[in-house]
């Protein structure tokens, strides 16, 4: 197991503490399918985003004051008087948006290529936990500048818990640390906002351990058959990820330097005022699809349950999709529903930013209905209607141009093999 390092100091340490062997195993030799496309770049981009957020966040915390009387002023002091404070804050503020963009693409990649299917169920479930923690962290972070949207967004979202029967009111007071959003709330949100990213880091490590157990899924969704179908992670994927990071950073820097308030709400540059409610309270854009689901249900408790279910349903996904074929590439009917889902979620995001009146409500209900129907109705039965396209025999066969025409019998055996593998 231990690798024979040539540097004697590294060797000495590694013999006693095999961190170098572990790194070599996980980030150097790690055998990766050679046919990954650029959608597979978004996992490492998510990791890079997490690092950017933690580093910029720690720098911000050094100059931030979590107190209702000083929070807004301390943020403005960072923007004006702290050396490069504006840069650090704009990186952190827009970094959150870019982190969510990357993670949402990462999730849709998994949905399309069936990355949640056996034997990667836990890998997927850990990922959903990361998403939930990211959402909690982002929500609390948005409260910290203590602008109008911070205050009223926090009021609306924390009030959702009051819909829970019997204990609701007490629960909300417990969350607030009082009878309204006030200094205790801001203080604890700051503490938790600082804590959660490190919990995310530890869960990301679990995510990676689970990933390395069976290796990355690939666009064909079939298992690695021959050793020559994989390539070592370094240098092939380190360089591909570095190239992807370059593209990511160009887009990120474009927003940070030239349109830093593009994703923000103007109202958050008004200091919070409990006596004046903004005309439209909207959460950050990355919560809008869930906000639309929440508002589409007329009953408060049912709305809250639907909103949380829209994430929780992802936990069940590995067992809701009963098709033995992983990759959406080979599932003609599935593909249709998948693309509608993507448009559906984008529509929900658009609707979540609009006032809950008239046609918006009707469309939100339709879109919400489709969202749940996709997971609870379509995926469990779609297998019966799917055109079960022919799978390539192996990754090498596909690369060599031995397309699906090669042999029907050949393909049937590959298909069966995969079903066997998945059912075990």
């Amino acid at each position, binding site marked *: 197991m231990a690798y024979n390092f040539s540097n004697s100091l590294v060797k000495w340490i590694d013999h006693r503490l095999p961190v170098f062997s572990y790194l070599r195993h996980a980030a150097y030799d790690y055998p990766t399918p050679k046919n990954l496309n650029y959608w597979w770049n978004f996992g490492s981009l998510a990791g890079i985003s997490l690092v950017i957020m933690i580093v910029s966040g720690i720098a911000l915390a050094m100059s931030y004051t979590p107190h209702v009387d000083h929070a807004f002023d301390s943020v403005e002091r960072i923007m*004006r008087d702290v050396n490069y404070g504006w840069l650090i804050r704009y990186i952190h503020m827009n970094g959150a948006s870019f982190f969510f963009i990357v993670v949402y693409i990462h999730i849709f990649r998994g949905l399309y290529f069936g990355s949640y299917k056996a034997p990667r169920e836990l890998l997927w479930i850990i990922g959903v936990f990361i998403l939930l923690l990211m959402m909690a962290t982002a929500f609390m972070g948005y409260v910290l500048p203590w602008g109008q949207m911070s205050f009223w967004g926090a009021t609306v979202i924390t009030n959702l818990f009051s819909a829970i029967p019997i204990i609701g009111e007490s629960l909300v007071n417990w969350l607030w640390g009082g009878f309204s959003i006030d200094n205790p709330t801001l203080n604890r949100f700051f503490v938790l906002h600082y804590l959660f990213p490190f919990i995310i880091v530890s869960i990301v490590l679990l995510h990676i351990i689970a990933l390395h157990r069976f290796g990355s899924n690939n666009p064909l969704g079939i298992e690695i058959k021959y050793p020559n179908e994989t390539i070592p992670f370094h240098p092939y994927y380190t360089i591909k990820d570095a190239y992807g990071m370059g593209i990511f950073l160009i887009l990120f820097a474009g927003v940070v330097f030239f349109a830093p308030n593009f994703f923000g709400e103007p109202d958050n540059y*008004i200091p919070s005022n409990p006596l004046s409610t903004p005309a439209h309270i909207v959460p950050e854009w990355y919560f809008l699809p869930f906000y639309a689901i929440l508002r589409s249900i007329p009953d408060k408790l049912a709305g809250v349950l639907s909103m949380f279910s829209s994430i929780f349903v992802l936990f069940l996904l590995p067992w809701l999709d009963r098709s033995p074929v992983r990759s959406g590439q080979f599932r003609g*009917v599935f593909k249709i529903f998948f693309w509608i889902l993507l448009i559906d979620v984008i529509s929900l995001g658009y609707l979540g930013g609009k006032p809950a009146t008239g046609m918006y409500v009707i469309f939100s209900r339709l879109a919400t209905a489709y969202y749940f129907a996709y997971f609870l109705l379509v995926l469990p039965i779609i297998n019966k209607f799917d055109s079960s396209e022919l799978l390539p025999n192996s990754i090498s066969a596909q690369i060599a141009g031995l397309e699906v025409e090669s042999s029907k019998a050949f393909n049937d055996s590959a298909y069966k093999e995969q079903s066997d593998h998945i059912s075990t």
Partner: protein
Amino acid sequence: MIVRIRSNLITSQLKITIAASASFFILIVVLSTAVKATVSEDIGIPAHSWSHTGPFGRFNKAALRRGFHVFRNVCSTCHGIQRVAYRNLTYLGYSEDEIKSIASEVKVLYNKDGGAGLYERPGLPSDKFTSPFPNEQAARDANGGSLPPDLSLITKARPNGLDYVRAILLGYEPTPSKFHLMSGLNYNAYFPGHQIAMPQPLYGDDVTFEDGTATSLEQEAEDVVTFLAWTAMPEMEERKRMGIITMIFLVIFTLLMYACKRAIWKDLE
């Protein structure tokens, strides 16, 4: 053969799906816009072309000084810019002595012995701009119950802030005959609801510019909004300059990484 037919079928299915989904989305957008148009009247803030916007836009120092002049002589009667310090005026090209004299015109309250007493002293360059009213209640009492907002961040705190603030300054018009205006309020074509507590602040002959620029309502409004853009984002020029250097670096870096990726992957397959 079967496969080919099937894949054609699937491609056409896919096309239909994408077309259907896209039209669904467009339908939502169109209908929503229609609903919006009937529900609320769109005020239509006039767009203005600003010299400092865009990736290469820089603040015009002369405009900033004229804008500061307007702010100091008109706006500051009721509005503060409490997040800006007098020392920040060096950015506008004022000398240290000029800033000292500007700052010394105001009285700053301070506590010199840790006791309850507050004493007055002349302002220093390190002080933040003093606001015209000591507190919110005093401001409301002096303005018929309305609070003149601090203007430090105003251009960032309103949607389309630059055009919005300019439009408000230019939007004072005679009250339309059918419009019911509440007492103490003024008609403004661009303020939401058209009733604004602020009386018309600028008329076009409010100041004399020290650089000889002819005064007009348009000129005063443009200059003061440029000044308020600076108070809201004093980092703008440094940000864009750094941004351009960063972009050049990142583009070269990415091209290099792409070349390396091509080179490393070449021997595969």
